[in-house]
C-alpha cells in the first residue's frame, strides 16, 4: 500500500516548513531510518528520516514552502504502485491512460495537476547555479520561470524579472506619480525568517483580545540580593542574571494566580501545571531584515531554584545562537518573557505582542534610578519598567491585575520569591 508522507509538525508554533533538500532521488528505493530530506522552519533545519522502507515519489521540490500536514511525497511498497501514487486517489484515471507505468511522462499526460510537481522533482530544469540560488532566496519555483539563456537555460535576469514583477507593481505605480521615496534596497519576504515572524505577529494580534498594562517595580532589593549571589559566583557556578530573578518571580506569581499560565486551545481554556517560560531572543542577521526572533522554552520553571533557572536559560540562549535548538526546546511555552532591558531607553513602556497561544507576556525594560518616597523620605531607588500584555479572552482584568500585583510584589521583595 502506498502511504502519503506529509510535512511534519516539528514544533508547536510550526505552520509550514521549507524543503531545503531531498536527500534521495525521486523514484529511489529507500530504507526505514534513512535520511530522507532536510526541512527548515524559522532557521532551524531538521534532517528527517524515512518512516518506512519502500519506493519514494517526490511531489514537492526542494525550495518549496508547504503547510504542515500537506503531502510532499508518497512511499509505495512496489514500483507498480508508484505511478498511481502520483495522482489524486479519488480520481483514478482510465487504465489506458497509465500506459507505461514506470514513465513519468505517461503519468503527466494522464493527470496534469500533480504531474507538474513530478516534472519539477524528477525532470531536469536547466538553470544556472546563480539562478538556482537566487530563486531559492526569493522563494521562487524554477519550474514556473521561463529561461532566456543559452539553450533556454534559466539565468539570473529571468529570476530577477519574475521576482520584481511579483513584488514591484505597487512601487512602480508610485514611481510613476513621482512621489515615491528613494529606496535603499528591496528584500524578499518569502522564504526568509521574516516571513514567519510577520505571520506570527499578525496572527497574534488578529486572533486574540490583547490588553496591555504598565508599572514600575523597585528592584533595589533584587539588585542587592543578586549582588550577594554574584559574590558567591564560584560556589554557584553562574553569574545569576536579573532575568533569572524575573522568571522566578513569574513562577511565584503564577502559583498565586494560576490563570496567568493558560491558553485558549480550540474551544477549551487550559490552565497549565507546568510553568514553561518562552524567552524571546533576537539574533542579528546580516541586515535588520533577516534578523531572527526565537523563543526557546525553559520548562517546568516552578520546580527550579534561581541558580538552575539561570544556568538553563544561558544554555538555551547559547544553543539559539549556535542554531542547535531542538524542536522540543522551541515549543510548549505557557507564558512568555520578552525583555528589552539594556536596549530600550530607561523607563520604556511597550505593548508586547502575545506569543500565541500563551495568555500572558511579560516585558521588562531598562531600569532607571529615581527619587521615590520611602517612609516619607526621598530615596534613590532603581525602578524597572514592566509591561504586560494578556489575552482578555482567557483572563479578565481582575485576575490579570492580581497577577501583575503578585509579580510586582515578588520583584520588589526577592526574599519572598526565594522562600
Amino acid at each position: 500500500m502506498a502511504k502519503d508522507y506529509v510535512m511534519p509538525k516539528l514544533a508547536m508554533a510550526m505552520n509550514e516548513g521549507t524543503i531545503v533538500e531531498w536527500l534521495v532521488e525521486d523514484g529511489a528505493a529507500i530504507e526505514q531510518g534513512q535520511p530522507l530530506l532536510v526541512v527548515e522552519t524559522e532557521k532551524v533545519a531538521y534532517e528527517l528520516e524515512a518512516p518506512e522502507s519502500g519506493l519514494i515519489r517526490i511531489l514537492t521540490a526542494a525550495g518549496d514552502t508547504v503547510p504542515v500536514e500537506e503531502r510532499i511525497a508518497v512511499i509505495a511498497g512496489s514500483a507498480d504502485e508508484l505511478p498511481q501514487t502520483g495522482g489524486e486517489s479519488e480520481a483514478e484515471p482510465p487504465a489506458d491512460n497509465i500506459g507505461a507505468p514506470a514513465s513519468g511522462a505517461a503519468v503527466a499526460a494522464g493527470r496534469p495537476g500533480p504531474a507538474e510537481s513530478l516534472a519539477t522533482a524528477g525532470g531536469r530544469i536547466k538553470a544556472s547555479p546563480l539562478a538556482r540560488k537566487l530563486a531559492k532566496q526569493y522563494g521562487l519555483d524554477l519550474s514556473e520561470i521561463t529561461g532566456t539563456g543559452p539553450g533556454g537555460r534559466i539565468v539570473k535576469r529571468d529570476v530577477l524579472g519574475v521576482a520584481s514583477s511579483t513584488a514591484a507593481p505597487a512601487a512602480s505605480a508610485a514611481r510613476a506619480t513621482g512621489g515615491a521615496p528613494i529606496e535603499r534596497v528591496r528584500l524578499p519576504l518569502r522564504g526568509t525568517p521574516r516571513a514567519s515572524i510577520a505571520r506570527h505577529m499578525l496572527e497574534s494580534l488578529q486572533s486574540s483580545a490583547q490588553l496591555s498594562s504598565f508599572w514600575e517595580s523597585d528592584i533595589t532589593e533584587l539588585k542587592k540580593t543578586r549582588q550577594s549571589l554574584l559574590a558567591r559566583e564560584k560556589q554557584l557556578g553562574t553569574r545569576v542574571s536579573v532575568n533569572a530573578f524575573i522568571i522566578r518571580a513569574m513562577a511565584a506569581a503564577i502559583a498565586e494566580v494560576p490563570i496567568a499560565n493558560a491558553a485558549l486551545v480550540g474551544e477549551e481554556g487550559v490552565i497549565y501545571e507546568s510553568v514553561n517560560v518562552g524567552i524571546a531572543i533576537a539574533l542579528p542577521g546580516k541586515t535588520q531584515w533577516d534578523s531572527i526572533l526565537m523563543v526557546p522554552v525553559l520548562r517546568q520553571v516552578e520546580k527550579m531554584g534561581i541558580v538552575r533557572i539561570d544556568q538553563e536559560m544561558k544554555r538555551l540562549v547559547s544553543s539559539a545562537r549556535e542554531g542547535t535548538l531542538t524542536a522540543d526546546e522551541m515549543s510548549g511555552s505557557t507564558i512568555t518573557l520578552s525583555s528589552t532591558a539594556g536596549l530600550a531607553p530607561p523607563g520604556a513602556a511597550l505593548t508586547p505582542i502575545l506569543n500565541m497561544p500563551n495568555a500572558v507576556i511579560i516585558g521588562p525594560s531598562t531600569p532607571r534610578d529615581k527619587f521615590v518616597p520611602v517612609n516619607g523620605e526621598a530615596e534613590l531607588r532603581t525602578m524597572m519598567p514592566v509591561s504586560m500584555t494578556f489575552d482578555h479572552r482567557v483572563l479578565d482584568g481582575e485576575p490579570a491585575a492580581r497577577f501583575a500585583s503578585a509579580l510586582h510584589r515578588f520583584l520588589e521583595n526577592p526574599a519572598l520569591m526565594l522562600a
Partner: protein
Amino acid sequence: MSDRFDVVIIGAGPGGYVAAVRAAQLGLKVAVVEKDEPGGICLNWGCIPSKHLIHQAAAYHALGEMEAVGVTVDRSGLDYARVQAGSRKVVKTLTGGVAGLLKRNGVCYVKGHARIASRGRVAVEEEGTTLECDNIIVATGSRPMQVPGFEFDHRQVISSDDLLALTCLPKSIVVLGAGAIGCEFAYVLNCFGVEITLVEAMSHILPTEDFEACAVVARSFKKSGIGIRCGTRATGLEREGDMVRVMLEAGDDTTDCVTAEKVLVVFGRSPITDDLGLEEAGVKLDARGYVETGPFNQTSVAGIYAIGDITKTPALAHVASREGEIAVEHIAGHEPQADRVDPDLVPSAIYCEPQLAGFGLREDQAKARGVEFTKSVFNYIGAGKTIAIGKPEGLVKLLCDPDTGELLGCHVVGHDATEIIHELLLAKQGELLAEDIESVIHAHPTISEAVMEAARGIGGKPIHA
C-alpha cells in the same frame, strides 16, 4: 560597382573585418572600405606587433636564467632592426590572413578613404565611386591621442606607432602614461636594456585596473629597474640637442624633471570620427568625438551603426569584434544574445610580465558604489607550479556577492594571467558561483590551481594559504 550592398563597413580593423565576415556568413552582400592595410591598428600597429616584441623581449630577458646553470650568455649581438623586421613579418602574415579571410567569404574589399555621402551612400575618394547600401557600419577605430605641449615629432617625441617602427633602440626613454600601452612598452624596452622612467598622473600604474593587482606589477617593474613616478603630471617638454627634458609636477606641487633620448607619449587614444561625413549625416557625437550608440550599436541615424574604439565602450579589439557581430546580426534580422557588450564581461589583458587580466568590479569601485562584497586573494606562490617555473609573483583576486557567491569582479596578475582569466570569465558568464569553481578538480601542478584556491577562499579556507 553599381550593385547595392546590404551593408558597407568603413574600416577593416578587428571590428570591421569580423563584422564583414559575419555579415557574409549570414548571407548579406557586404563591402568593407579600408584606406590602410586590413587588420587595423590591432594587427598593424597595436596588439600583434607589440605581442611579438614582448615575446622577443621575454626570450632575450630569459637568457639570464641560463646563467644560473653555468651557460655563458653573450648578449652583445642584439640587432634590434632584426627584432623589428620579425614583427613586421608577423604583421604581414596576419594581414594577409585577414585579406584571404575576407576574400574567401566573398566580401567586397575596397581600398580608399570612405565618407558617408548621405544615408545609404558611401563615397570612396580614391576610387571616385559611391557605394549604395542599406546599412553602414562605421568602424574607423582610434589614433594616438595628441596632447597640446606634447605634440608628436615622430623622432624625439613619439607615439606608440612610432615606437613600433623603431629600428634602433634609444638608451633612455620617458613613458608618459602608465596605461596598458605604456606598461607593455616599458616592459619591452626595459628587457632590451633601455633606461625607463614611467610617469603616471593617477595614484598607481594601470589606473583602470584593480589596485592590488597593479601593485604586483609595480613591484616587479621597480625590481627590474624601471623608474615609476605615480601621482605625477608632465607639465611640458624642452628639447636639448639629442635629448628631451620632461618637466614633472608631483601631487604635492613639487617640481622636477627627467631627461631622456625619447619621450613616448601614450596618454590614450582618440576616436577617428572626423572627415567621415558623420555629423553631416546627422550622427550624434559627444564633445570628445565619440559616437553615441544605442541598442545593437545603432547611432542616432537609422541604418548607421558604430562599433569599436569610436564608441565609448572599452577600446579593445575583442570589444570591437563582438560589437561588429551584434550590429551585423541586427541588420540581418537575427536576434543576437545581447543588444550590447556587457562591460562587466569584457576581459582586460595587459601583456607585460607579470601579466594582468581582469573583468568586472574592482575593489575601489565596489567601495565607492557601496556594493557589498566578499573578497578572496590567493597568491601565486601558493601554487607549486609558479615556484617550479620561477614565476611566483602574482595573485588571483575574487570579489563575490556575499549572499549568492556570484562573481562580481575577478583580477589575475602574474605569469599567463591573460590565459588563466578565461576560466573565471566563463564561470561569470555561465553564472557559476565561487563554490562551483572550487569544486572543479584542477590539474596539478598548474597556475590555475590558484583560481581554485581563490574560489575556496570565498566560502571557506584555501588549502595552500
